[in-house]
Each structure stands twice: as C-alpha cells, then as structure tokens.
C-alpha cells in the first residue's frame, strides 16, 4: 500500500514540473501571420514554421488552446510581436525561455504611445517591419548558425522587396488629395501607417479590440466625419464591423453620406494561399485600397499587379 502511494506521489510530482525545454530540432512557432510570413521568407525550407493565430482572427483577444500551448512548448524558437499585442497569451509566452518579442527594443524605432501603452501595430510601417525582419534573421541564425549565409541572402532579397513596396506606398498614399488624408477604421491599428505616410488616423475602438466602442467615441467621430466631409471609412477583416456601420448611420442622420471604402487587413492577413495572405500582399492591399478610396491614384492591381481585386 505504501509503495502505491509513493508511486502516485512520484507521478504527481513529475507531471507537475514543467516540461523540459524542447531540443533545438523543433519547429519555429510564431503568433501572427505577419511574423510567420517574414520568417518563412528567410528560412525557406530549412525549418518548419507554425503560426498560431490564423487569418481573420483577432490577436488582441485570442486565448491559446491546449494544442497551441503544446506547440509552443515543443518549439525550438517562438517569435511573437510583444507590446501586448497577444494580450491574453502573456503568461504562456513569459514562461518560455526561447520566446522572443520581435517588436520590442528595436533600435531607432520610436513607439507611438507611452511606455506600457505602446501601440503594437508595428507592421503597418514598412520601414519598422524591415527592422523586425533583421531581428527575425538574427534569431533564426542563432538557432541555425550553419545556415547563416543562406538566411542572409534571403533576407537581403526580402529587404529589397520591402523597400520597393515602401516606395510604392509613398507614391500611392501621397497621391491622395490633401483635404482627404483621413483614415478612419474600426480600431486604432493604423497609427504607424499614418505616421509613416502622412495620413491622419482615427479608430473607433482603441488600440485593443477588447475595449468597448463607447457612444461618445462614435458620436465624436460622427461629428468629425461630417465636419471634414470625409467620403469613406474602412472595415477590418478581423474586427466586427458593427461600430463602423453605426458610424455611417450616424453620419447619414446628419445628412452626410459615407461609404465603406474597403476591408483592410489590420491584425491578420488575408486568406492563406493567396497573395493577400502574405505580408507584402497584405500591405499592398491595404495601401492600394486606402489610396483608391480616398481619391488617390493607383495602378489597377496594385504594387506588383498581383492584387485579386
């Protein structure tokens, strides 16, 4: 009888202790698609990259499932955004030694918002995300020092693409008439875009979708919309469009017609397997849609002629 209890106790103790850190053979796990895509561009076939928060899913409120936690545990490297983007996964990521916040402590990047309340949507500024690409390359090289040369080469190519897209953004968004350079979206995801390319940006909800869109916010925005005679507002793929619709109705009640200029990819990319399902495609889509809806001029199919609509 005593032996039985000893066994049970031992078993309990063993199961309660944390799992051993996985060997460095495991896959790379990322939280959001924007990180996953860049990582894949860099490592190519050398490493498996698993992304947890899929297309159309909101990372601010995402709660990790048991399966997700297992994957994180067995990963050789975890890359996440940080700055509280993955709001509800904090404790899980904190507990993993090889988890790295690619968006935090970047050199030469001025965060919008104060310490502790920084806006996490860094990928909206192509130049910042270029720095993130560097950081990602750093981390995967640490993991696979032997592949350092290959990774470096791939990074260089990718940086070139980013640079080209950045130029395109300047042109496209720059072509928007001065008095229409206002971007209104469901939540405050686009501040970095606005700062980088000269647009005034307002979101109905705050920087996290967890916060409620208050009546006051909506009414203030309605007043703003009507005063500035803004023609379009934008919905987001991963956020409820109710508040945007409420905004439009509010403006209509005051006699000002606002239309939905398009759907933007804010916290998640487009459908997997499509062009918009890559980081470049996502930003291309966003830039082109915004520019077109606000009265700028853009090529029909965007940056590389690859947009599906």
């Amino acid at each position, binding site marked *: 009888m005593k032996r039985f209890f000893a066994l049970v106790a031992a078993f309990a103790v063993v199961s309660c202790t944390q799992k051993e850190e996985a060997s460095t053979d495991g896959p790379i796990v990322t939280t959001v698609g924007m990180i996953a895509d860049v990582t894949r561009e860099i490592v190519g076939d050398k490493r498996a990259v698993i992304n947890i928060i899929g*297309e159309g899913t909101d990372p601010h409120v995402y709660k990790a499932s048991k399966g997700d936690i297992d994957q994180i545990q067995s990963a050789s490297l975890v890359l996440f955004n940080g700055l509280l983007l993955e709001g509800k996964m904090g404790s899980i990521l904190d507990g993993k030694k090889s988890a790295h916040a690619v968006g935090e402590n970047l050199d030469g990047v001025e965060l919008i918002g104060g310490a502790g309340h920084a806006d996490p949507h860094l990928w909206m500024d192509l130049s910042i995300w270029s720095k993130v690409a560097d950081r990602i390359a750093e981390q995967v090289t640490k993991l696979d020092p032997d592949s350092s040369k290959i990774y470096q080469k791939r990074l260089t190519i990718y940086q070139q693409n980013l640079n080209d897209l950045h130029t395109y953004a300047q042109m496209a968004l720059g072509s928007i008439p001065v008095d229409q350079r206002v971007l209104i979206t469901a939540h405050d995801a686009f501040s970095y875009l606005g700062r980088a390319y000269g647009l005034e940006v307002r979101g109905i909800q705050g920087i996290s979708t967890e916060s*409620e869109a*208050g009546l006051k916010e909506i009414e203030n925005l309605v007043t703003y919309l009507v005063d500035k005679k803004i023609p379009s507002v934008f919905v987001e793929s991963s956020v409820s469009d109710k508040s945007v619709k409420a905004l439009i109705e509010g403006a209509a009640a005051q006699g000002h017609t606002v239309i939905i200029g398009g759907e933007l990819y804010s916290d998640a990319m487009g459908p997997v397997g499509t062009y918009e399902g890559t980081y470049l495609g996502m930003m291309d889509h966003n830039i082109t849609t915004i520019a077109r809806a606000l009265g700028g001029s853009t090529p029909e199919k965007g940056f590389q002629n690859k947009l599906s609509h």
Partner: protein
Amino acid sequence: MLETLIDTLFLKTHNTRLVVLGVTFLGAAAGLIGSFLLLRKQSLLGDALSHATLPGIGIAFAVMTALGMNGRSLPGLLLGATITGLLGVLGVLAIRRTTKLKDDAAMGIVLSVFFGLGIAILGMVQKIPGQSSAGLESFIYGKTASMIEADFILIAITLTISVFVSLLIIKELTLLCFDSNFASTEGWPVLVLDILLMGLVTAVTVVGLQSVGLILIIAFLITPATAARFWTHQLRHMLWLAAIIGAVSGWLGASISALYPNFPAGAIIVITAAAIFLISMIFGRAQGVFPRYLRHRQLQKKVGRQHLLRSTYEILENSQESKPLKNLAIPLELLRKHRYWAKGELSKLIRQARAEDHIERQPSGELRLSESGFGEASRITRNHRLWEMYLITHADIAPSHVDRDADMVEHLLGAEIVHQLEAELELSKSTIESPHVI
C-alpha cells in the same frame, strides 16, 4: 459637459437615440414580463435560460460561417441563442420531472453546464479562419454602443409583439401565477401557458443579450418587478410600475454610460435598477420598511392612548359607587398599578394625552381627564366592553381570556363595526358593566 448631458438625456444625436431608446424599451418590456416571471416564482428559471443562450451563439456563428454567410449576422446569432436557451429550460424541466433533484439543483446544473459549454465553444470558434469571432463574447456582459438601425428594428418588433401578447393574455397569466391547480380544473392549458410565459421571457432575454448581456439580463427581469411590489397591492399597478421602473433604469443607465465611456452600459443599468429597488424597499408605500414602521408606531400610539384613557375611566369607576360617574383627579400611582406598562411607556402616553388635551395635571400632582378626554374615555371603554361581550357570547372564549383578545382586536375596529355590535347585542347607548373583575 452639461451640454453633453442634456444632449444625451434628450437623445439629440442619432446613435445615442438608438441605444437609449432601445434599452428603455427593453426595460419596459423586461419590467412587465419579469413581473409575471416573479409571480410565477420562476425567476431562477429565467437565469438558467439566459446562461443557456451562450452555446447557441457560438454554434450559430460556426454554422453560419460554414454556410458561407456572415457569421456575425444578428438574427442568426439570436436564433441560436433562443434555441439553446429553450433547450436549457427544457433541461431543467426534464431533470425536475425525472429525478428527485429539486429546482435549485436542476437549475444550477443546467446553468453551469450550458454556460461552460458556451465558453468552450467560443474558444473553439475563435480559430475558424476567414471570419472574426470578435464580438461574440460581448453577449456575456453586453456591449451597447454600436447599435445599428437594423438591430434596433429587430428589438423594437420583438418587444412590441411580446408586450402585446402578454397584455392579451393578462388574465390567463394572472390565473396561472396565482392558482395553477384551479386553472387546470377550469380547463386552462397550464403547460401551454407556462410555455408561452417562458417564450415571452426568452424573447426579452435574447433581445437584451446585446445591451445588458446574458449575466445581467435576469436582474433586468427581476429587479423592476420586485421594486414595484413595494409600492402597491394591486396587480395592474404593479405591472405598470414595473414597466416604468424598467424603462427609467434603462434610460438613465444607458445615458450615464454614454457619458462615461469606461462604464459598461449593462452594469450601470442594473445598478440603477438596484438603486430604485433599494429606495422602494425602504420607502415603498405598500410594503416598504419605513412606512411599515410608521404604521406600527401609529398603531402603538393609538393603542396606548386607548389603554391610558380606559384605565383612567376604570379607576374612576372603581372608586365611585354612584352613577353618573364624576370626573375626579386620580393619583399617578393608581394608574401605574392598574395594568402593565412597558418601561417609560406610561409617562410617554401621559405626555401624549396632555398634548392632545385629554389629560390635565393638577397642582397636587394628580391627573384628571379633561372634558373631551372624559367623553373619549367613556366611548372607548364602552366599545371595549361591547367587544368583550361579543367575544363571550359568540366565540366561546372563557371570560378570563377575554380582556386580552379584546385588547388586541378592538383597536382595529372602526365605527361601523361598533354599530354592528350594538345592534347585535341590542343595547342602548350607555356604558355597560365589565363582564370580569378588573
């Protein structure tokens, strides 16, 4: 700030108008229908219902997304909520019927199982690619601000129909709530009526999910009704009052939350309703704590006055042989010994009687009835003895017990009963002898 307050309270802007009107209407309907729920003593069943709506929301989202529709379409979500909500209620009834478990256990089981299932489904549903399930969790606590016209119209129609139906069958519902056995023998379909009532509650619950959230909707259903009960004993008034309290809670609560964006609308609404309930519980005219206390004190005063005057009169009777009785002064000690007085009570009553000009204090320290006091004492004593006589002759109570009973009951008699007694005992207008030794 003030301008914003006025703008909000008077619904100047479109968005505010939608939200506040919607919630006000919800409050009125919840007050009305919640009253029946309360009277039928099934308030907790409403709680089980609201918690059981959660899995339906998640499932509806998943199904609609799978069918390629907009996963967040409100009518679809509400339909899902309704289905699982009703399943929850059926679950409670089934458990009640087939096991020995009592109501509270049955409701607890259903409530927690369904709610847990709902949370689990929402967790799974967030992984469905292509559509964001963001906003589904808002049904738990409510998220009013982004109400659009289509939502409002849905709410308005549902509530109008519910209110109309409940008013149509108001007497049937009253009978059901008061005496369901009698209703059954009269051929009223008790089960159908219960289902109808549950249906009305479901409509209000499902429609209120958006504004107040499923956890708080039950408070919206119960609180105005219980608050109303403190003010009236009449059903019709209670229904009206409950509807008004519900509407005011909704209006105030939504307006306040519109002004302060950090306050969730659902919670403020419920707190407003609770505040009104608290006021009602303390001050409500029919059953409130304070009015009851006042009435009790008034009765004590009345009873005390009658004791004092009657004792005085009896002392006079005892000390005089001849009739008619002379109004003489009596020493305080006699009064004190005549019957039981609580500590300090006698002096208080004497003070009261002097204030009413019924008793005068003589220079000698003795007490004397005034002229009006004498008349009053005579009247009271006569009434008392009439009642004693009635109790003895009609109620077979041993004479020694009579005094106590008469004391308790007579103070509640009015003039009409006294006349009745006189007629019964065929007495003339004079004082009669006490049927037991004083």
